[in-house]
């Protein structure tokens, strides 16, 4: 190949370096810097280059990791979980149908408290048709398995997330998935600033933790009778409670080392005259920030930490800024008349406050989300006075050949 996308990671990065890269290679670079022991993933569009990039670095010799080829995603997650339980720092990655195939093994990593990290290039599930493009499948069934989940807006964030996830996983002893929007971030070239290897090493030291060990035998995930199961679940629940605090602490340490600020929730222009704000996550936040350079009458609440959900922070933000109306934008739907998963999360956090909201389903299967959607969502929200009627609607979809749903000519 005439182009070597991972060339910059072939030798020690000694000082902060400005470069440009696609999201997937940036993740591969970030993972390289965290020095994983095992990399095990099965390729699926749009995740592929992240693993491809890592295979380059392992082949070249810079990264001394076991690069394990497997026959499916189920094998990948099983192998990764076991490797991680055996004490290896482990990275895996997937998307869409691969994520579904992993589902069987996903809860195990939580139950055994193994600090696995996984990248997800968000892509639609294949229904009704096969689509390799972006939707938020990760919100759809597996949100409540107990994985930590952070979502990235751009290439810089997804590179940082590769490092943040290792810190979060190993501090909380829960597996962490970090998500970027498939194609929109995974395949788009953007500027990013690389952290020196030494700084990453200091942030991600390999600490002693519980591992499978012949000197200390035991069963991992063996059968229990009803006498024990519920206590086990409640033990997990208690262990999960401090995780948000751990994540905030990780964000602060990261900021101190690199100067880049992350928080579970970031806000933009909330003290606006209409007391209205968009609330969303991922790449769409960038679109809205650009949109807001011309439209000062609306704010944005950007969710970075999706699981565990920072609902107390969200409530505080809404109360502190007197937000009256929220426009929820999300790239997944629910089909059975209930709010889609991201909106459901927000709605349950808003319940004690009674804040008015409507949810708009946009950008499914890679459809571009533009100023048109933001304009009309904002306009529709102006007439909302109560919580009666349907709480969600689709935006940017053709009703017939010459009519766009919900848009009057």
């Amino acid at each position, binding site marked *: 190949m*005439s182009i070597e996308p991972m060339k910059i990671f072939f030798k020690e990065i000694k000082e902060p370096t400005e*470069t440009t890269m696609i999201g997937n290679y940036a993740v591969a670079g970030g993972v390289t810097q965290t020095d994983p022991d095992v990399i095990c993933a099965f390729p699926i569009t749009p995740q592929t280059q992240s693993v491809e990039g890592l295979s380059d670095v392992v082949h070249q010799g810079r990264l001394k990791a076991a690069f394990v080829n497997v026959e499916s995603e189920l094998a990948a997650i099983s192998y990764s979980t076991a490797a991680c339980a055996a004490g290896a720092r482990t990275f895996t990655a997937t998307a869409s149908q691969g994520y579904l195939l992993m589902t069987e093994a996903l809860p195990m990593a939580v139950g055994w408290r193994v600090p696995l990290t996984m990248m997800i290039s968000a892509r639609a599930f294949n229904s009704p*048709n096969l689509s390799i493009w972006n939707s938020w499948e990760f919100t759809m069934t597996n949100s409540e398995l107990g994985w930590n989940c952070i979502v990235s*807006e751009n290439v810089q964030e997804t590179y940082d997330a590769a490092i943040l996830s290792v810190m979060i996983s190993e501090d909380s002893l829960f597996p962490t998935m970090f998500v970027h*929007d498939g*194609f929109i971030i995974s395949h*788009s070239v953007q500027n990013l600033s690389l952290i020196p290897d030494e700084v990453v090493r200091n942030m991600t030291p390999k600490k002693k933790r519980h591992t499978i060990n012949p000197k200390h035998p035991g069963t991992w995930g063996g059968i229990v009778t009803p006498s024990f199961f519920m206590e086990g679940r409640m033990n997990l629940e208690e262990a999960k409670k401090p995780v948000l605090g751990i994540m905030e602490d990780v964000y602060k340490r990261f900021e101190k080392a690199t100067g880049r600020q992350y928080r579970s929730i970031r806000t933009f222009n909330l003290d606006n005259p209409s007391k209205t704000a968009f609330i969303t996550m991922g790449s769409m936040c960038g679109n809205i920030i650009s949109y807001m*350079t011309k439209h000062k009458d609306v704010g944005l609440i950007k969710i970075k930490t999706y699981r565990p959900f920072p609902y107390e922070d969200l409530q505080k933000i809404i109360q502190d800024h007197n937000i009256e109306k929220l426009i929820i934008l999300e790239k997944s739907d629910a089909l059975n008349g209930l709010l889609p998963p991201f909106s459901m999360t927000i709605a349950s956090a808003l319940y004690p406050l009674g804040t008015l909201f409507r949810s708009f389903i946009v950008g499914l299967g890679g459809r571009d989300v533009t100023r048109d959607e933001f304009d009309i969502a904002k306009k529709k929200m102006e007439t909302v006075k109560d919580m009666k009627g349907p709480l969600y609607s689709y935006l940017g979809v053709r009703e017939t*050949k010459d009519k766009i*749903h919900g848009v009057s000519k």
Partner: protein
Amino acid sequence: MLTQEYVNDVLKNQCVNLRFHARGGQGGVTASNLCVEAFKGRGICQPKFGAERAGSPTESYVRLSFDYDLIRSNEQVYGPHFVSVLDPSLLTEVDVTAGMPQGGWLIINTVMNQLEIQDIVKRKDLNIATIDATNIAMEILGRNITNTIILGALIRVSHLFSLEDLSDAIMRRFKGEIAAKNIAAIKQAIEETCLYEVNIELDFSKDTKVPWQQVEPGLPGYKELDKAGVWYCDENVIKVGSDQVNTGSWGEWEMVWDKETCTDCAQCWFICPDFAILREKGDDGLYHMAGIDVFHCKSCQNCLEICPVNAISKRSKQGPASCAVPEETGGN
């Protein structure tokens, strides 16, 4: 002509949009990546997301600015100020000027002149730059890869980045010898670019996006689909049939069949993956070679290699360069 100062001024508080049209394998995406890499401010480059195959038409988008908030959007580009076309055969196949504001720059790898191009794209309000990138590529790189060469023409008209910036970016990206060859090709391209200007000022602040164009009105809506995941072969609903796709335009070469030399052995007919070797039943009741189906031939050259008597040859689709001055001046 745009000047360096003017473009720098625009970039302070505006976004400059670029679009690249290429064929899979010509490196259109690499060209747009290099723009972001060479540019001194912030940039974002997105390929038109999808399944790329060698020879099929591809698009990629670039947005550049010094204002980070403007670049932060992940929207695709709808109103490109500069459009680069890496392969002249795309002019008739793709609407390369879609969304371009008047006074925008259309940069084409071609040997055609202003009038011929205006005639094809049906617009007279665009500045045009042409470069015979194919010949430069064959001469210097030895392969028809025109991506870096078209960037030479882009530098000449846009001043978005300098030759030095681009050379640095190429050296970071490419291996040594290949990098040097590409830089030499770019230098030649900057010199050989032909410019055909119209006297219309390019307004960078004008937004040419048609409301809801991303929803693609005109295609069937949700009410017009029967069962969402089940698509019957009904031409009234969705136009079907891959035989309707002009895959012939994906090929780099025009395959030529010589009837006199041909012995009718039919080996080419067996090996052709696209059924593009035509045979006809003769008076003797047997099938004989009749020609090549140029609408579907992707010039994979399997037939050329298997032919035992060299009855099949290839020729380049693009003729020799000429910076012909058009007979009457265009404009408006």
